[in-house]
């Protein structure tokens, strides 16, 4: 029974990773860049909800919606100011280092505004925990909401990409930017849209993450962000179902290694997974093979 509890916790954490990884994988698939600042947008989302709820006393639903809007705007702004000018730069390192700079900027901005002290995040989700098997297995409201919203988000995203024109444009841009441009796809607009969706998802991920793990600091987002990237790579970067599966598996691995091996080594184990995946199957579970052109 204890194992079942751990497993459920793992799936819950994994669902959060999956939502973050969806944002990563879309941005990577379309803009071909590792958005290092993605994790920090999660942090911004959490702080936004925290402030809206505790300072203005708005209802949780309204503050979450506002936080999603704030993060979406932030994502679009960051893309337009910092990443767009570097599209087509001679070195791929240029945009990566800029992304690190943006991450650094967001962290220090939060540090300046909110201070280094840990803030206690009050859970947005108000739901009775579910007990199964006569109370030996309990599922918290946060867990239920996290898992359901993760599945919902994935289904919505898949429908969006496969059924709408904007989604098809995203696929086209990820396939070949030049050709998509020739076919009349607005490449810059599509990339902006991708960043907007990814950042909005980051806000939701921030809400779910902070509801389950309530201590909030300016560095809250960076580790989950990096782990979600691991999940995206694990599932195959650019693939939406891959990000989902990768996230869930990674969450389970992390919680189980925390429970059965060592709580201090769990991060190391998660990173070991990344290294093994990249060495054995660099394209991940569901990734496409890429041939290098000369």
């Amino acid at each position, binding site marked *: 029974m204890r194992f079942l509890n751990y497993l459920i916790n793992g799936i819950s954490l994994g669902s959060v990773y999956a939502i973050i990884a969806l944002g990563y994988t879309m941005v*990577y698939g379309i803009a071909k*860049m*590792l958005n290092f600042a993605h994790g920090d947008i999660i942090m911004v989302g959490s702080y936004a909800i925290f402030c809206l709820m505790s300072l203005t006393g708005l209802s949780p639903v309204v503050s979450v919606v506002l936080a999603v809007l704030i993060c979406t705007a932030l994502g679009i702004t960051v893309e337009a100011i*910092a990443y767009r*000018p*570097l*599209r*087509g*730069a*001679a*070195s*791929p*390192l*240029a945009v*990566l*280092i*800029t992304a*690190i*700079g*943006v991450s*650094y*900027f967001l962290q*220090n*901005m939060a*540090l*300046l505004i909110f201070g280094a002290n840990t803030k206690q995040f009050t859970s947005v989700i108000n739901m009775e925990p579910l007990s199964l098997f006569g109370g030996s297995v309990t599922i918290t409201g946060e867990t239920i909401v996290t898992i359901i919203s993760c599945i919902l988000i994935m289904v919505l995203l898949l429908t969006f990409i496969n059924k709408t024109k904007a989604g098809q444009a995203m696929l086209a841009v990820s396939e070949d930017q030049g050709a998509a441009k020739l076919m009349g796809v607005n490449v810059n607009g599509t990339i902006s849209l991708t960043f907007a969706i990814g950042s909005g998802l980051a806000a939701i991920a921030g809400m779910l993450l902070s509801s389950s793990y309530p201590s909030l600091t300016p560095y809250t987002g960076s580790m989950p962000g*990096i782990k979600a*990237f*691991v999940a995206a*790579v694990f599932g195959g970067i650019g693939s939406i179902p891959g990000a989902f599966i990768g996230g869930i598996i990674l969450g389970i691995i992390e919680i189980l290694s925390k429970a059965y091996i*060592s709580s*201090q*080594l769990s*991060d*190391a184990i998660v*990173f*070991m997974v*990344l*290294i093994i995946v*990249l*060495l054995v199957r*660099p394209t991940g579970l569901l990734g496409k093979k890429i041939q290098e052109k*000369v």
Partner: protein
Amino acid sequence: MNRFKNNKKFRDNIITYLLVIVIFAVVESLKATGHISSLMKGLLVPVCIYIICAIALNLCVGILGELSLGHAGFMCVGAFSGAFFSKCTAEVITVAPVRFILAIIIGALVASLFGFLIGIPVLRLKGDYLAIVTLAFGEIIKNVINVLYVGKDSEGFHFSLKDMVSLHLKEGGQVIINGAQGITGTPNDSSFEAGFVLIILTLFIVLNLIDSRDGRAIMSIRDNTIASESVGINVTRYKLMAFTISAGIAGVAGVLYAHNLNSLMAQPKNFGYNMSITILLFVVLGGIGNIRGSIISAAVLTLLPELLRGLADYRMLIYAIVLIILMIFNWSPAILELRKKYSVRNFIKNKKTKEVE
């Protein structure tokens, strides 16, 4: 003297050496006359550490062209192996400089070994993936050291990954690496003078490497991997070579760090990935691939916050903004085009050609 006139690279290198020597001489004379506050004195060794680290990372980012976010990990390995050696031999080798030199050699070797072993799998990757995997390795190193317990007694060394008790030390045994508490009581062998000598040594190694056949091979891989492979350059070998040397130098910085403090712990703030990013900041602000720039920016950016106390809170924010602006200014295709069009040099050249006409 002819070489000085004709060889720009040689001249550049000499200027770099002279710069370091002159700054050292100035600081030493200020120290002798008592013009340096104790706060600044405390920063002299950290400045040396950051300079060495920045040179190491610049070798990796600027010369090899691969972004490593794991250099704090190599620093950590160097620091712990050097401090471990010093602590074990504190009673055997009583001459501090000899012990320190040996510790540095050991730290450099162990860090290079780690660089080599990690480099074999990592250097098969490129760009973003390489950055994230080096970051992963750095975090793994830090996490493992945090749960590592090593003790010494009459029977030799004992290792454990669990706790102090499971070392099963005999009476009179001593715990050397105590998990998250790290190593305490490392002899304070670091000094500004030692740091200076190490900077000169590092410079000598790196500048000579860049100016050698091997260095040119490494830079050709950076500029075009496929082309350099097709003219017979062994890409893996040269990549590994640069990465290993870079890791070893970071290890030296770690040893210097360990011997500057009484207690050495592997925490996120000293060996975490934020440290790697701080070093990257020095490299980018100094100019990627420009060794002299790294030295200047590491020194200035370490000392600046102490000189401008009022700005201390905003310092990191300003660095981040400067970093983003510099990257866009230096790499954005549109801005490069503009700079070409309106550069002063071009302006003068155009004038001259017009006059000739």
